């Protein structure tokens, strides 16, 4: 009995990553290389290894629970982890030059912290118990707080780190408080047990209280209105490399714990949390899009845009079935997963461009800096074009299918009005994406503006990244299938 519970094979990727991160930290201590090539290579190699392991586990159908259901491994966790590895890999490749020129490599901690944040995300993704969720969340958050503060002599970064830390801790507190309420009501921290204890429409005071706090905590982590205040400040203040670290993969992990907590744990209360999510979703789309219109800073604009995109994800999460119909749920939550993956893919490319265009002593982050890019570097301009139209949801790019799937889920629940609201806010959103395209293509560059040649490696990865945005837009069926099927087989 004991032995079968400690199923180390299930957490093999986590173990490998942890050991590797520790080893890299030690190896790095002996390094004097200002570029930290070894650290960088080892980190990427680690990612490659865990990628292969997770893929192999996924293909081999490895699944189950371990450590007294502290850990759940299913096809959902495999898939989300795989996407997270890719996101972290892309982040490290895009940011290599950037962190070198910004004195963020005095030690190789950047890479180790990124790996530890990833480890936290993996724990979150595979969590089967509220304690595991909290453990993963804190591991990830602490690593990212440190990353945001990495440029310690940079005023804005330090401010952003402080804000992120204070608000993030507050959110964690919310979540923890909610969890304790739920524990009080059900007597268990195990999500599966909670799921079977809570009765449909159970309106115990403690449970509803707990639910509200959990939703608030999750909303913080996803960065949706009205818990979004930290998003624009942290996105803008953090060094762009770190912005990408916290804008891409953590969203997937946050999404995973939303699924674990709300669907596995509190699925019977769907009817109670759906309206909350709808309100958060509509507010996020409204405030995110309207505020993004007024931004002059690219990173800030993308931050508000992320708020509106998370609103769309919540919309999908809110269109599941209230009586546990598996296929309706798979459609709704599968569309949310697809949306997340497509959002991460596009976000990587958008911040990737921002990063490769920044030079020593020059942050390419004002919208003005993108003026006339088509004249200076048509390829980067093309990347920007596809990314912006994908974010705006114009076919044939992946962002369109993400919106399409969410809208169809919403319409299938009969909330046509909500779909109309969502598309109207997308229309508003289209304007600021169009403005970027306008700057890139229609405007003249400033006379002294030059754009350096992008080094081969990030340039090729950027090409692959944007190629996927287009290719998955032309033939989205495969990714859609995966999204729906992993949800179907895991929840």
């Amino acid at each position: 009995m004991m032995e079968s519970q400690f199923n180390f094979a299930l957490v093999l990727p986590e173990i490998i990553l942890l050991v590797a991160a520790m080893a890299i930290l030690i190896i790095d201590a002996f390094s004097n290389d200002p570029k930290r090539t070894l650290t960088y290579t080892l980190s990427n190699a680690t990612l490659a290894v865990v990628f292969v392991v997770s893929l192999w586990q996924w293909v081999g159908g490895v699944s189950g629970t371990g450590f007294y259901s502290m850990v759940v491994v299913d096809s959902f966790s495999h898939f989300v982890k795989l996407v997270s590895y890719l996101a972290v890999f892309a982040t490290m490749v895009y940011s290599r030059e950037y962190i070198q020129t910004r004195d963020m490599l005095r030690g190789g901690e950047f890479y180790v912290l990124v790996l530890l944040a990833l480890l936290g995300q993996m724990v979150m993704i595979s969590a089967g118990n509220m304690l595991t969720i909290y453990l993963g969340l804190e591991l990830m958050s602490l690593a990212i707080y440190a990353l945001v503060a990495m440029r310690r002599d940079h005023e804005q970064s330090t401010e952003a780190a402080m804000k992120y830390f204070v608000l993030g801790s507050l959110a964690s507190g919310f979540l923890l408080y909610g969890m304790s309420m739920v524990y009080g009501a059900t007597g268990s921290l195990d999500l599966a047990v909670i799921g079977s204890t809570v009765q449909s429409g159970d309106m115990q005071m403690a449970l509803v209280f707990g639910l509200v706090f959990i939703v608030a905590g999750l909303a913080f982590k996803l960065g949706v209105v009205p818990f979004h205040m930290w998003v624009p400040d942290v996105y803008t203040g953090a060094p762009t490399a770190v912005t990408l670290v916290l804008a891409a993969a953590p969203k997937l992990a946050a999404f995973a714990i939303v699924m674990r907590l709300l669907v596995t744990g509190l699925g019977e209360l769907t009817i109670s949390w759906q309206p909350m999510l709808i309100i958060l979703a509509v507010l996020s789309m409204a405030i995110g899009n309207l505020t993004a219109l007024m931004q002059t800073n690219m990173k800030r604009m993308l931050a508000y845009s992320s708020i509106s995109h998370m609103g769309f994800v919540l919309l999908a999460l809110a269109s599941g079935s209230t009586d546990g119909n598996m296929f309706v749920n798979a459609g709704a939550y599968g569309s949310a997963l697809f949306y997340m993956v497509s959002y991460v893919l596009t976000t990587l490319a958008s911040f990737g461009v921002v990063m490769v265009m920044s030079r020593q002593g020059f942050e390419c982050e004002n919208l003005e800096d993108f003026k006339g890019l088509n004249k200076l570097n048509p390829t980067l301009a093309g990347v920007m074009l596809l990314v912006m139209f994908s974010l705006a949801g114009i076919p044939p790019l992946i962002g369109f299918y993400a919106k399409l799937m969410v809208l169809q889920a919403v319409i299938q629940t009969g909330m046509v009005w909500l779909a109309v609201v969502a598309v109207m806010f997308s229309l508003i959103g289209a304007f600021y994406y169009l403005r970027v395209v306008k700057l890139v293509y229609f405007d003249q560059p400033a006379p002294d503006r030059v754009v350096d040649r992008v080094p081969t490696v990030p340039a090729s990865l950027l090409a692959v990244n944007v190629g996927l945005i287009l290719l998955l837009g032309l033939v989205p069926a495969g990714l859609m299938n995966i999204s729906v099927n992993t949800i179907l087989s895991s929840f």
Partner: protein
Amino acid sequence: MIGEIASSSVPWLTIAIFTPIIFGLIILLVGRDDQPNVARWLGVIGATLGLLATIPLYTGFDTSTADMQFVHKAEWIAVFAANYHVGVDGISLWYVLLTALITLIVVIAGWGSITYKVAQYKAAFLILSGLMIGVFSALDGLLFYVFFEATLIPMYLIIGIWGGPNRVYAAVKFFLYTLLGSLLLLVAFLYLWATTGSWAILDWHQAPLTYDVQVLIFLAFLASFAVKVPMFPVHTWLPDAHPEAPTGGSVILAPIMLKLGAYGFLRFSLPITPDASVGLADLMIVLSLIAIIYIGFVALVQKDMKKLVAYSSISHMGFVTLGFFIFNIEGLKGGLVQMVSHGFVSGALFLCIGVLYDRMHTHKIADFGGVVNQMPKFVTFFVLFSMANAGLPGTSGFVGEFMVILGAIHFNFWIGVLTATALILAASYSLWMVKRVAYGKVANERVAKLKDLDAREFLVLSILAIGILYMGIFPKPFTDVMNASVHVLLEHIATGKL
């Protein structure tokens, strides 16, 4: 019930859609700023091959049936039951041919007039052309929407990069106006998909819908298609977009892109929501009449040639929508013929304006006068096209308008009378423009130095002139193609869904 006839061994329609798109991508990859001629030649080759691929569609078209022909179907997104599914019938065939032809003309006509980022320019046109053929031939709702929306991207760039001084405003306005409508269209599509479980447009034609639902869907369709047509009162983007668009952009915009909206009425609004279409016909007729008459007057006072032709386009498209919503055979066929004819005529007029613009860099009417002294060949064409715009018998403009007026008189005498006044208006603004531009005293020194058409311009305008005269004198081949489909459509509307 409309059936489907599969394509012969060669999927011509798919080839016609993707040849220009692939050539567009090739141009983007190989095109360099210092070698514009490579892009130009590749553009001509791509457009020619695209046009050649549409010829078997015409020669192999069976005019005796209303079924979809040259159908090519392949699985696309299984989760959504959406397929790659294309085919043409009598309603869409002419627009596929027209698109391919106009693309070739644009690529040739814009040979030397664009010098900035030539490769991107040619690529944008070829990709746009493939996408538009895709819109006209899609039989799957999702595929239609993807093509329909994707056209926005190249058109936005064409207006915004190579347009006039106010191009940014025009491009953004064009994009947002169209997107507003399209998003509502998407919601309607998703609703249809949710209720029928199919994306096939022909299945939607048969879907039983209550009257109230039909009205909502009709309005969502209207939001999208009315913007594209454009109908009063959502027409204001067009007169802004045209003067700012480069010549090629205008030539694609008026003859083809506007047809996407009108085509949408025939493929979606009328067959999917027949009862709502009949119920709301009064609204459509009133809006069409306002477009025909009021916009006709607006055209009269324009000081800019491109704006004048833009307003005249709105007025002419009013004929088309009017013809569709009076539900008789003359009206419907007249509307279709008018669409093809307007494709030729407006394209030709914009090319003529482009010829002048290349020489004088202005399209203000007041900057011209007495052009005939320097450019007799040009003015011959210009007069012909303006006459066709005014609906002179013997030109294509006459056939469609006459049929619509005839249909309108059958429907209601007074509507017919009102419609007919448009002929007077069209003659006034067209001929007055010709008078001010081509005749009279030579306005200034720059006009005095104008050179007449060169061989390339002559060729391009001749092709359109032949099309206009041929269609005006012998319209039977055009209407024959449409007959079967139009009859089936009218029967379908008369049967209704209730």
